[in-house]
């Protein structure tokens, strides 16, 4: 069975570092006038997106094409999903057409793991339920690595991650990756938006930590959460946890501001992001292509199961 990228914890630190260094190569490719290499010629990547997500899907598609792979797209919004056809049947049908890798985004936590039982193709988790989003974590790490020129690791870096941690796969994966590389992560969130029974490294007051951080990571505050009585209203959320002009003015010049996108202007991002000195949000998007190319190359192009063990053959 081929290797897959399902979560940061399964990837492990050596794998994480390896993908970040391959991403340097991809970044160089993307700086050229013709950003394309033939490395994955003849390979087919299928985007299996069960949740609407144009940005991530385009990012993966671009990454595959820049490596000269062929792409297939299967985009299903939940409402039109034919309940009669099971996920398993969908996957087996597409696999029978000859696919080397599935990139899957699904609203149910655990779906990418189930796929592994039904196909020999590589599986890349592009986000499952609230659980994991490893390529987001990779592009976040790559962005910090390049912006702060921290090639060895993130020891001593202090990160504040603010917002709806409970429902965020980005929070889980990115936090795990930061910690693997040695950074310190504090979650800033009201109790209702934290996973139950999680107690360490949590504060409910953003102003308490704002002066002592190197990275401010804002999570999307979804309007749908209003219906679940998780916060009384968005205005209150913004007052307590949003990046307001007052808070932005207090931020040190060195502090990176990050966001997985898309932004809710006026909610978690209550200031014009172009006025933030440390805004690396656009770099995150660019780096999304770099790391996704690295992931595809590593799984489909770099030859074998030896690759993640890091034994260089030159």
């Amino acid at each position, binding site marked *: 069975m081929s290797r897959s990228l399902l979560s940061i914890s399964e990837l492990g630190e050596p794998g994480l570092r390896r993908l970040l260094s391959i991403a340097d*190569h991809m970044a160089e490719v993307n700086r050229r006038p013709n950003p394309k290499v033939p490395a994955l010629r003849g390979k087919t990547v299928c985007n299996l997106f069960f949740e609407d997500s144009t940005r991530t899907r385009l990012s993966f598609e671009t990454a595959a094409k820049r490596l000269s792979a062929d792409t297939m797209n299967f985009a299903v919004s939940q409402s039109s999903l034919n309940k009669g056809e099971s996920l398993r049947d969908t996957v087996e049908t597409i696999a029978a057409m000859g696919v080397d890798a599935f990139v899957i985004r699904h609203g149910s936590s655990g779906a990418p793991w189930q796929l592994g039982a039904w196909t020999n193709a590589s599986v890349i988790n592009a986000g499952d339920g609230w659980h994991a989003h490893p390529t987001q974590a990779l592009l976040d790490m790559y962005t910090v690595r390049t912006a702060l020129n921290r090639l060895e690791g993130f020891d001593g870096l202090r990160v504040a991650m603010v917002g709806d941690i409970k429902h965020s796969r980005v929070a889980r994966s990115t936090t795990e990756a930061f910690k693997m590389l040695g950074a310190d992560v504090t979650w800033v969130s009201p109790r209702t938006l934290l996973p139950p029974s999680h107690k360490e490294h949590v504060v409910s007051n953003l102003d308490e930590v704002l002066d002592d951080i190197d990275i401010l990571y804002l999570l999307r505050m979804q309007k749908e959460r209003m219906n679940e009585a998780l916060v009384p209203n968005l205005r209150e959320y913004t007052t307590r946890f949003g990046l307001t002009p007052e808070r932005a003015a207090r931020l040190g010049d060195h502090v990176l501001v990050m966001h997985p996108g898309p932004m809710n202007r006026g909610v978690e991002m209550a200031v014009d992001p172009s006025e933030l000195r440390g805004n690396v949000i656009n770099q995150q998007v660019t780096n999304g292509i770099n790391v996704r190319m690295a992931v595809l190359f590593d799984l*489909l192009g*770099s030859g074998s199961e030896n690759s993640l063990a890091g034994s260089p053959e*030159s």
Partner: protein
Amino acid sequence: MTNTPDEQSAEPAGKQVLGPDDVRRAITRMAHEIIERNRGLAGVALVGIQTGGVWVAELLAAEIARIEPETDGVLLGSLDASLYRDDIGLRPVTPGTVSDLTFTVEGATVVLVDDVLYTGRTVRSALDAIGDYGRPKSVQLAVIVDRGHRELPIRPDYVGKNLPTSSEESVTVTAEGVVISGGGS
């Protein structure tokens, strides 16, 4: 770069066929040849193919600068062709250091530099890679050792030494010399 896939653990026991002085002299001769053939250094760029060709290119560039002190020396860069290999999926590939080509390839005379020329596939990948940076005026090839067994129609312009070998042998080239190890059993 050694061209045999299974030569991982370096065999210490091997036959040294060239010593450090031989290598040094070869480099000096090749440096003269490059200058002569191109009638000077205008538009000439040395590009070391990773990983084995990088140190050779550096030595060549240093030697060229020594021979022609009144010029600014020759343009120097390095190229990682691992994303262009034709055996992707067959052998593990780890990209080396990121390619470093700070000059314009367009219209340049690119001299690809490697330590050993064997099947020719690495050079083919490098040709494809260079093509993605621009259209050179011409491409030449400089190698320290040509060990034969070409699988593609590739020929070097500058050779340090022709060394017939068997395909079971492996060839290692450093500034200390050339060692052939392995061999049939």
